[in-house]
């Protein structure tokens, strides 16, 4: 490599590291792709994401109860009408949420 190339000491150290450790080379690659990646990878962000494994379904009990109170005087919509897609205006109810398909089928291991 030509001496004309100006590299900072940090880059030089990284270049040395790629020779020494494949892991460090991978880190360089990752940082190149995601420059905004946090400096504390094992820190609370990653862990908190891990703790909240469940999918967040949109349902706000406050909104739901407010909507229910508003509709108290009006007639409640029938179940059939609610089959349309949930839009931004519509307050989801527990009944609206897509039902988790239950495993009524036997396991294929038990065949």
């Amino acid at each position, binding site marked *: 490599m030509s001496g004309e190339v100006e590299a900072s000491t940090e880059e030089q150290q990284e270049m040395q590291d790629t020779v020494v450790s494949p892991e*460090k080379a991978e*880190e360089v690659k990752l940082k190149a792709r995601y420059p905004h*990646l946090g400096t504390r*990878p094992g*820190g609370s962000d990653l862990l908190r994401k891990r703790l*909240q494994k469940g999918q*967040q379904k949109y349902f706000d009990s406050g909104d739901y109860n407010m909507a229910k109170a508003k509709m108290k005087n009006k007639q409640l919509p029938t179940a059939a009408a609610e089959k349309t897609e949930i839009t931004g205006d519509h307050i989801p109810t527990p009944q609206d949420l897509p039902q988790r398909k239950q*495993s009524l*089928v036997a396991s294929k291991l038990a065949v």
Partner: protein
Amino acid sequence: MMAGAGGGNDFQWCFSQVKGAVDEDVAEADIISTVEFNYSGELLATGDKGGRVVIFQREQESKNRLLSRGEYNVYSTFQSHEPEFDYLKSLEIEEKINKIRWLPQQNAAHFLLSANDKTIKLWKISERDKRADGYNLKDEDGRLRDPFRITTLRVPVLMPMDLMVEASPRRIFANAHTYHINSISVNSDYETYLSADDLRINLWHLEITDRSFNIVDIKPANMEELTEVITAAECHPHQCNVFVYSSSKGTIRLCDMRAAALCDRHSKFFEEPEDPSSRSFFSEIISSISDVKFSHSGRYMMTRDYLSVKVWDLNMENRPVETYQVHEYLRSKLCSLYENDCIFDKFECCWNGSDSAIMTGSYNNFFRMFDRNTRRDITLEASRENSKPRAILKPRKVCTGGKRKKDEISVDSLDFNKKILHTAWHPKENVIAVAATNNLYIFQDKMN
């Protein structure tokens, strides 16, 4: 113990059975999430993402079957957990079975604990091969007889019937875990068991469902200060006061329940010193322990992190006594493994009955076995291509660079969607169960 290249007295593994669908389209619910032999090895349980448990029973060895051991056939299957929705937190609770643990058999029935993210259930599996005949108040069809028309009394007789295996939930241990349960472990006192989630470990009595003791709590007062989580926990096989738990930082803590009611302070702390100059972005992630298992002897424990398996002597905290590389060639692929989330895969590990060998899974449906005495290791593949009865499994090899020899597979050709996370070794014999996504493979040693 290990398959050799030549003949002689070298040990070899053979295909025995494969269970599950053949089709390429794998339904999410069919993905096997846990595999466990019972204490005698007679029963083999699997749990899946659909919340179902399937139990296989080994058929009695008959004199005709000289060339292979008894096969495992379906004994019972039931829906253990259902999907639930926590309305308060707006969170789905998956029905996926995270762990199954058998209780030691104490009478004719079999008991096991199955756990999803939030609830543990004690299931009783019992056989019924007789039914009562000749009731006084019911006739043959089950219709009630008019009591005023009964003129004589008879004693019901027990008649044989076709074997029926029934599974019934005997205890439901719920509402004790805010975070996701990753481990359950039956204590050697056969009365208690522990359940662990990301931040807490609870001790239960098998008879009592409305309360449990919290024995470890690592939740910080301020969640911003969270630096590590509990990844696995297990009771000591003989000392009912001792248990261990592993962390996402690659450490293991051994706790003694006689020392304090709350075991936040460990009795022993196991950590391998790390070379600070080799530290990278990935270091902590790949050091996270995905499984911890005591040896049957109780003298050692084994931990699995992303790239290796380590055996620790309980008497030595500062480093493991043995380290085995599972797939070191992945170290130069960590960037893409981070991007596709594979770096977070949780592999399990297991001991053989005599603690002389250990097994763990890898990618491409490969699994690895290490003989602790000879230090030999072998890579085998769970594939329907080698599924002729009693076909000997050929050792596989991953080519790490340079010229790829025939029969070797290059790192870039590995299928990272085919992961073997769950394996189990029969407690007494050389029979192993390997879960490959939605298929369960059973292999055994070659009988001459």
